[in-house]
């Protein structure tokens, strides 16, 4: 047992901190600090800066740009990025399709896609969820029927995050309609400029455009775009979703947002007084800080125990509690800004601080955190079933 980082890790942390606080363009970090949405261009520039430094896809095989980092180093990389207000490399590229291609794809498909994926020259979208499926992913109905050297794809995907920016989409499609649920599914890469593919925006409750529906109407896809074997897609998806859960607790960004809220609170009382003098606010913030500490330490425990590549059973705790706290901090922000929370649409000339205007849209937007990427109900199911052995 030991509290300190090793000298090597201390040096690594310093290096990462320096990189993220100096090498990522300031406008990007300012946008994050203002709690506003990043533009496509900002996301691309941010990831390309990381890729230029060779740290955009550390979890990939070294030959494709990965790093031979320890799990703790990967954790430090991720934390420092978030603390600095830097958006992590686009998950669809870095954590999802990249590892699947690198692990299951042919040499040809790796060469075609991995370099451009790491550099965000291709913006990937995710085509897993379908209407009427929800958490029951395997009940998908989009079909891919083989005709010669092509699949003809028909169906609909939904909740495609940032799909409006997508160049390509990785999809789960049903290639064997006779097989039962999880079988008969394949993992297919589709060019989003293909005829018959359309993207329709879904407006969210905060007014933002972040997710989309993607429709496939006789979209023809070369068979060479199949990853791995036909009808083995469910295995690849499980692999991908397993990756998605590792390090999934947004500790660093929540810590940053909470610290920012505390700073804001210092002059947010009537007449510029400090709301930290309000004992109920102070207690709530102190408790959130303590809960975040507990979460961060749990993440470190999980990191330390996942050296063998298998996720620690407690990783579901991270997603569950991570979103609970993420949402609690967005709620704290709304409480801190008080009646200014109403002024979401205020522009130039407004006397309401900019950070007050973004408080409620963020609060509403982050209700998604406990739904997407394995809802908190799914996480409880996993904890009860896998960890505690309680099987209904």
């Amino acid at each position, binding site marked *: 047992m030991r509290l300190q980082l090793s000298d090597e890790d201390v040096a690594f942390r310093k290096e990462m901190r320096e990189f993220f606080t100096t090498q990522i363009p300031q406008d990007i970090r300012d946008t994050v600090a203002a709690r506003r949405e990043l533009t496509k261009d900002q996301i691309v520039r941010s990831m390309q800066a990381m890729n230029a430094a060779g740290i955009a896809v550390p979890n990939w095989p070294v030959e494709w740009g990965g790093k031979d980092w320890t799990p703790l180093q990967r954790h430090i990389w991720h934390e420092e990025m978030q603390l600095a207000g830097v958006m992590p490399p686009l998950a669809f590229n870095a954590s999802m399709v990249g590892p699947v291609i690198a692990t299951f794809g042919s040499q040809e498909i790796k060469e075609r896609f991995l370099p451009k994926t790491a550099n965000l020259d291709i913006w990937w979208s995710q085509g897993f969820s379908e209407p009427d499926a929800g958490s029951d992913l395997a009940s998908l109905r989009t079909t891919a029927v083989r005709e010669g050297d092509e699949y003809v794809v028909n169906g609909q995907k939904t909740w495609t995050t940032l799909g409006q920016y997508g160049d390509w989409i990785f999809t789960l499609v049903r290639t064997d309609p006779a097989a039962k649920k999880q079988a008969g599914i394949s993992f297919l890469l589709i060019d989003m400029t293909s005829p018959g593919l359309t993207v329709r925006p879904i407006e969210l*409750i905060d007014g933002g455009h972040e997710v989309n529906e993607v429709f496939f109407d006789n979209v023809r896809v070369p068979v060479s775009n199949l990853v791995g074997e036909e009808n083995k897609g469910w295995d690849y998806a499980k692999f991908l979703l397993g990756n998605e859960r590792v390090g999934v607790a947004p500790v660093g960004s929540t810590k940053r947002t909470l610290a920012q809220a505390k700073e804001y609170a210092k002059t947010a009382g009537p007449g510029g007084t400090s709301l930290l003098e309000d004992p109920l606010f102070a207690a709530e913030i102190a408790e959130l800080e303590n809960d975040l500490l507990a979460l961060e330490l749990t993440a470190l425990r999980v990191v330390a125990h996942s050296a063998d590549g298998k996720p620690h059973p407690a990783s579901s705790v991270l997603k569950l509690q991570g979103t609970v706290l993420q949402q609690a901090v967005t709620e704290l922000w709304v409480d801190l800004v008080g009646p200014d929370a109403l002024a979401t649409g205020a522009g130039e*000339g407004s*006397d309401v601080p900019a950070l007050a205007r973004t408080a409620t849209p963020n609060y509403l937007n982050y209700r998604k955190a406990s739904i997407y990427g394995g809802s908190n109900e799914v996480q409880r199911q996993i904890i009860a079933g896998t960890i505690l052995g309680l099987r209904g």
Partner: protein
Amino acid sequence: MDFTLDSEQTALRDAVRGLLSKAYDSSETRRQVTKTDPGWDEKTWSRLAEMGALGLPFAEEDGGFGAGPVEVSIVAEEIGRVIAPEPYVEAVVLAGGLVAAAGTPEQRAEIIGALAEGSLVPAFAHTEPGARYSEDARGVTATASGDGWTLTGVKEPVLGGGRADLLVVSASIDGGTGLFLVQPDATGLTRTSYTTFDGGRAAHIAFAGTPATPLGEAGADQSAAITASIAAAQIAYGHEAIGAMATALEETTAYLKTRKQFGVPLMTFQALTFRAADMYVSLELARSTVTWATLVLLDGGDTVDALEAASRAKLQVSKAGRHIGKEAIQLHGGIGMTAEYSVGHYMSRLTAIDHALGDGRHHLAALSATLDDHGIVDPLP
């Protein structure tokens, strides 16, 4: 002790419900209305006026219909059920209530009649940047000049301030807080309207030596009228929230009944149905408190009682609204996050109500401060 509506009140409820459920028959209809200024539907407002809903709380001699807080609560709750964007609480209960409480007979006759007819929509310009939920006004100063008065300072966010035909403005005067009537096109007044996250509108209103007419006696401290009208509006907001929560729960239970996952309806999952049960508990507890607060207003006890009742109602509504709003979305899953679907709008509106006129924490602090004034809380007078 009677919590039931009489037959006239029931008829009022049915009439308002009929009107509003036609006007807002879908989430999409509401979205169309809130997309364009002023964010609500002038025709629906006129129909509410025709029905008499806008004049309910006012004395007949002022041009109102001589009803009371119970009738107001009925309309507010129906507004909430469909989250109609019309500024009922803001224009009628709050701005109108101030005119009724503080205005001269002439002012009352002029303004309330027009408000009740639907031809004049007032707004109360009170909230000031950085003042949080203060009930006094320090950011706008009133100065007597010649035989008139002028105002200088900023109010923001002023709910409905962009569309308002008449502004009721609180301003600091010697010895307290005065109320003033200001024409929106008055000299030295600039107003900038913008959207609020719940589909509504608010405005930044700056006064620079803007001519203003005292509401009621010139130079009088109107703090008591402000406090009382805010209390009435807090309670009415409570009813609006009750209506919204009831619909959010209905939509959620309907979804759990019909939506299938893993081949069975969601209501097969006990962890979900128990949470719906807890939403019902929150709703009914809040409903009891808010209804009681309205009866305290009706009973016409002293202001202290009404303020305390308003704080109690607002605290309970804040807790219930957060609980029900969040759970409604969570139990819907992804679709609950979309603007096309309704529950997200219900949560937005509940959040807006929570933070207008003091959130739960604010009212809890107020109640904590008077803890030592009583042994037990007795709801009966």
